[in-house]
């Protein structure tokens, strides 16, 4: 994977669903703009070309672990080429909600080989900073409101942990958390404790981001 050599900065927010990434991204975005920086945000599954197809396939439950990995990689490569790199070239701070670590964790829990998934994302660009939001399944379920807001794949139902949505979600999330912890060895990230108050999390994030701002 290549490093970012453009004038802009790429900041990734990783963590399971309901870990509070979105709230922090919005706060950081406002702050950056107040400070006078150009900032844009994007997210996984945001490619104009592919996102709708992923959504349809998820609704029809027609993704296997392999096609799940591949189509999300295609989505990332499309976002990278059309949104992220042009913004970085123009000197923007790009905030992305779920990036490569989410793919690594999810695909490996789905049974894909580490090496295969990492190689698959070889085209991607390493972020300047990665924040990882650490939480527990109970806490993230609280944040998401209700289990009915979680879709089939996000609950890991395709893996077959349990036929019960909530139980499957809990087991999937614990497995994902385990994978994220393992990824720390290869990808330095800054862990944000989602049990801390929102303002305290934001202060830490701003402090770290200040360090890379031009």
């Amino acid at each position, binding site marked *: 994977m290549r490093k970012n050599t453009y004038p802009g900065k790429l900041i990734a927010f990783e963590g399971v669903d309901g870990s509070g990434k979105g709230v922090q991204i919005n706060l950081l975005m406002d702050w950056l703009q107040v400070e006078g920086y150009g900032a844009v945000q994007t997210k996984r599954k945001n490619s104009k070309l592919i996102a709708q197809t992923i959504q349809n396939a998820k609704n029809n439950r027609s993704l296997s672990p392999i096609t799940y990995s591949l189509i999300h990689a295609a989505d990332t490569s499309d976002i990278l080429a059309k949104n992220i790199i042009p913004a970085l070239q123009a000197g923007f701070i790009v905030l992305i909600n779920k990036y490569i670590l989410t793919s690594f964790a999810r695909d490996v829990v789905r049974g894909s080989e580490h090496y295969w998934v990492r190689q698959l994302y070889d*085209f991607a660009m390493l972020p300047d900073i990665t924040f990882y939001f650490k939480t527990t399944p109970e806490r993230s379920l609280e944040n998401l409101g209700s289990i009915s807001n979680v879709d089939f794949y996000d609950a890991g139902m395709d893996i077959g942990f349990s036929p019960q949505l909530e139980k499957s979600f809990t087991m999937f999330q614990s497995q994902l958390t385990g994978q994220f912890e393992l990824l720390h060895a290869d990808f330095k990230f800054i862990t944000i404790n989602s049990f801390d108050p929102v303002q305290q999390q934001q202060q830490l994030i701003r402090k770290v981001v200040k360090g890379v701002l031009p």
Partner: protein
Amino acid sequence: MVKLFSESSVYESKKLANAKPDQKLPRFMQEHPYAGKLIVVEGIDGSGKSTQLKILYNFLKSKSYPVILTEWNSSKLVSKVIKKGKKKEQLGPETFSLLHATDFADRLEGTIIPALKAGLIVLADRYAYTAFARDIARNCNSRWVRNGYSFSIKPDAVFYFKVPVKLALDRISLTRTPKYYESGMDMKLSKDPLESFVLFQSKVLSEYEKMVKEFSFIPINATLPIHEQQKLLREDVMLILKKKAKACEKIPTRENLLPLKV
């Protein structure tokens, strides 16, 4: 085709994804364990492989062999997106490669392998080799492309339709102008689509040539008249089918199979 997420399909998928490219594409190098036969045609656009495969398909059907035909970029899952992306000329080389890999994986798991398990003959118009040739001609890293396709299985035979680029272009030009990606216009090799076609397809052709030995392609001289090529193709295919019949005792014929909607 309806896909159910039984535990076994996940298990199957896991086994496929666990192929390590470090071990030089293990699945590509060993015979597949299924009862059916997988026959692949490869070659540049305009080499006449699709024509040959369709004639072969009808021939096998007329002989009551259980046979299906699957084409590149025809999965329910993503073929529409690929077509749309191509039409709008907005696919980068990596996105192009990954979307085609998705299409291929979907057909492999949903169509090809189930058919092979049921003992059918699967005729594939293009296979992973197409991606190896095209994506590498588009300057994607060769190790990266092969890793992306490392879940593939080894076909029983790969027929490589060898044709000079100029002749391929003449054939295509008879009915239409070459398409944007077919000509590699995204590579900005030339502003003239015809010239770009020649430049790009020559690169693809040289990638195919490199693979002939590595993947034991069976070359077919695609400049011969259609019926002569077909004769050669049938001879080889019948040999392969006989060999298969021995290995798995007998090929199920249409009569002793329940109607299969593939």
